[in-house]
């Protein structure tokens, strides 16, 4: 198994290996086999298209958690310019599972807040695998309130396996820190755009996820409880996670139908990790378009719309 490919992608991985081998042969033996390589490449593309046109909810969850999936820190330098990271909640510490700071998009100053899972092992530990503690949500809150004062729109990038379930987290009030963010984001007097870039897990995701516009990347996921957690409760076994994922409707397609998600940003063939630059460019364009729309609206109207939208959830 190639760890850079998920199990349902293994046929693609095998083709890619063949292509690589042929390329090596080609350079060694100086035989012209470019036609053959070209054919295999086409085949690989068609195969990827075929596999990706028919992904189950559970497959999408797994793409969203792919080890090569781009994280906030992969997107931020590609989407924004002049990102200056700001640290700390001013009360307890600096939670590296949430990064935030001021930046520009298309020249316009914005506040960027994103959950970061961390890439290498050491980095994952530093970032607590993207599971924020109360100080993370309070840092986010501090930055959002600052954005309001300086009339900067807020852009949040959601990607977390959930808020951290630990003793210290509970001691410092993880529930309150999330609840407070929900309350304040419902009325923060500046545009808020939220984008689920990977895994949007429950309250931990929502804690930076209330705003005027909610978009999801095509193969990202958003759920109230992880499919494994749901399966464990209902079927008493995580083996049923695929069924749970299907039943809960954890994909942008279902959530857009429910009116919870506003837009789906299309991913490059085979997922965002196959072409990070292209993905980042699409996200950037999406943000610019939505920002323009929101900033043309009178502030009062935008806030009332945000509130009424929250009130309408479920009905």
């Amino acid at each position, binding site marked *: 198994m190639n760890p850079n490919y998920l199990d349902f992608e293994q046929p693609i991985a095998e083709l890619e290996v063949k292509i690589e081998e042929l390329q090596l042969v080609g350079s060694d033996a100086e035989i012209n086999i470019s036609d053959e390589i070209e054919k295999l490449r086409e085949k690989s593309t068609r195969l990827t298209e075929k596999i990706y046109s028919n992904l189950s909810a559970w497959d999408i969850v797994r793409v969203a958690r792919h080890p090569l999936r781009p994280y906030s820190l992969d997107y931020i330098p590609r989407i924004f310019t002049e990102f200056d990271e700001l640290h700390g909640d001013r009360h307890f510490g600096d939670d590296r599972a949430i990064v935030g700071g001021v930046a520009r998009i298309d020249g316009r100053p914005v506040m960027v807040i994103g959950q970061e899972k961390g890439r290498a092992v050491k980095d994952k530990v530093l970032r607590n695998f993207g599971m924020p503690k109360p100080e993370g949500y309070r840092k986010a809150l501090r930055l959002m309130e600052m954005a309001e004062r300086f009339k900067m729109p807020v852009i949040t990038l959601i990607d977390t396996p959930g*808020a*951290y*379930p*630990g*003793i210290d*987290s*509970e*001691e*410092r*009030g*993880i*529930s*309150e820190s*999330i*609840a*407070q963010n*929900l*309350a*304040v*984001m*419902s*009325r923060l007097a500046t545009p808020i755009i939220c984008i689920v870039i990977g895994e949007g897990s*429950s*309250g931990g995701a*929502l*804690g930076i*996820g*209330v705003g005027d516009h909610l978009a999801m990347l095509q193969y990202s996921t*958003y*759920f*109230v*409880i992880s499919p494994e957690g*749901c399966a464990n*409760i*209902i*079927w008493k076994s995580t083996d049923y996670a695929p*069924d*749970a994922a299907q*039943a*809960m*409707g*954890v994909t942008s397609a*279902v*959530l857009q139908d*429910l009116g*919870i998600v506003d837009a789906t940003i299309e991913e490059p063939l085979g997922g965002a990790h196959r072409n990070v630059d292209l993905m980042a460019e699409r996200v950037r364009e999406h943000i610019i378009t939505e920002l323009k729309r929101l900033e043309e609206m009178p502030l009062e109207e935008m806030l009332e719309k945000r*509130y009424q939208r*929250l*009130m309408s*959830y*479920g*009905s």
Partner: protein
Amino acid sequence: MSWIDKILPSGVRREEGQRRSNVPEGLWKKCLKCEAVLYRPDVERNEDVCPKCDHHMRIGARRRLDIFLDKEGREEIFSEIEPLDRLKFRDKKRYRDRLSAAQKSTGEKDALIAMRGTLQGLPVVVVAFEFAFHGGSMGYAVGEKFTRAAQLALEEGIPMVCFSASGGARMQEALISLMQMAKTSAVIERLKLAGVPYVSVMTDPIYGGVSASLALLGDINVAEPDARAGFAGPNIIEQTIRQKLPKGFQRSEFLLEHGAIDMIVHRNDMRDTLARLLAKLTNSELSQKAEAEEDELEQDEAALEQEVEAESKPEDE
């Protein structure tokens, strides 16, 4: 009247056709904490607090509202709100069937009951979670009822009190449930901006999505003694950190010590304490009438006690 009816105190006797409560009927009740076998009327008179060890037993939403609000002038509100199954959720059973079963067993449409009434004369809007309905979980119906009750409080400028008891967001309504967290938090924020008091009373247990939204956003957060409240359940935390949790973790005393709540209030003192707090927050006086009513109630209770004693006598003879 058969001999058994004669010895049953009036509080226990049930007429034909009366709605069944969730508690199995009987003259005796065992305290789940100290395991003392208790005389049911004693327990009921003590608002379902164990007279021996002070354990606050779980009580249903209607009982909660009944012991909290003044007897006169209460009215159930937004009872028309019904749960929705927009996802047509199905696991081993259909969610719709699970809902019908819960509705049948509890007699409620969903897990939140709302009433308006008075507390020692002060007008209040009160909501209470019914834990027996799907573990008091919050889906559309709970979120919607809470929100409408809060909007009523906002429009009329009267304080809101919420008694929560919930396992969290209802997973069968998936992201719709999650969004109820944002919805309820948003309306609470409006109460806050308008200066309308919101008191959250946490009763055992409160976890997940309800904890991370409406339960911890009170102007004043109160908990009953020994109630458990937290974001993640103890099992999840133990699995994550691979160590045993300290004694008393996530209990009311823990919450008080770590600054999450303002005070722990005994169930018997709930009315007095909340009335006193709300009167100050709204700069009003508790009415004499309410106090007089209280006295009257106490007299009623004393009379009931005598009646009960008189009725139980034949048993000894």
